[in-house]
C-alpha cells in the first residue's frame, strides 16, 4: 500500500476527532475525540517511520502514548472533582465562567 493511503486515513481520523471535540458536549467524549486525534497522529508517525526507514517516528509514538495517558489521568481527576460538587459534568452547564 502506498504511503498516501495511510496519511489519508490518518487525516480523516484526525478530522473526525477535531469535529468531535468541537460539537460534543460531554467531557468524557471530548477526551475520546482527543484520543482519536492523537492516535491519528500516531498512525502517521508509524507509517512515515516505516517508509522513511527511521525509528524516530516509532519512538515518538511511544512517548505520545504515555503522555496521553497522563493527560487523561489529569482530566479524569478534574472531572471527578467537578462531579463531587456538581453531580453533572456537561460542558454546556458550565456557565459560571463565560467568555
Amino acid at each position, binding site marked *: 500500500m502506498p504511503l498516501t493511503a495511510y496519511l489519508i486515513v490518518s487525516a480523516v481520523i484526525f478530522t473526525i476527532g477535531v469535529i468531535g471535540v468541537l460539537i460534543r458536549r460531554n467531557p468524557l467524549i471530548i477526551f475520546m475525540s482527543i484520543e482519536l486525534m492523537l492516535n491519528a497522529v500516531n498512525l502517521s508517525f508509524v507509517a512515515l517511520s516505516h517508509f522513511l526507514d527511521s525509528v524516530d517516528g516509532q*519512538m515518538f509514538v*511511544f512517548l505520545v*502514548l504515555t503522555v496521553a*495517558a497522563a493527560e*487523561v*489521568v489529569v482530566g479524569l*481527576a478534574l472531572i*471527578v472533582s467537578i462531579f463531587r460538587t456538581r453531580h453533572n459534568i456537561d460542558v454546556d452547564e458550565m456557565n459560571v465562567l463565560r467568555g
Partner: protein
Amino acid sequence: METALPVFIYVTLAILFGLLVMAVTGFLGPKKPSPEKLAPYECGIQEIAAPKRRFPVKYLLTGMLFIAFDIEIVSFYPLAILLHQLKLFGLLELLVFMAVLMVGYVYVWRKGAFTWE
C-alpha cells in the same frame, strides 16, 4: 484434506441446526412481554435495586493511578531493545527512571490514595 471433509460437513450441519432451532422457536413460541421479562437481568422475580449503579469514586482514583503507572512500562520497551548498545548508561537511566517513579509511588501511598475507606 479428505479426512477433514467429514469434520467440515459435521460443523456446518451443527451450525445450521442451531440456527434452525432458534428460527423455529422465534416463529412458534408465544410472545407475552411483560416489564419483568424485559428487564436487563430477567429471572422471573422483580429486581430489588436499579441495575445501573455508579462506580464509587474511589474506584476511579485507583483506576487513574493504575493507568498512570501501567503505561510508563512502555518506556522500557525501546530501552530493552537498545540495552546491549547503551550498556551501563542504559541501565543507570533505567534506575533513575524507576527511582523517580518510586518517589511518585511513595507520595501517592503516603497521601492515602491506596486506602479504600
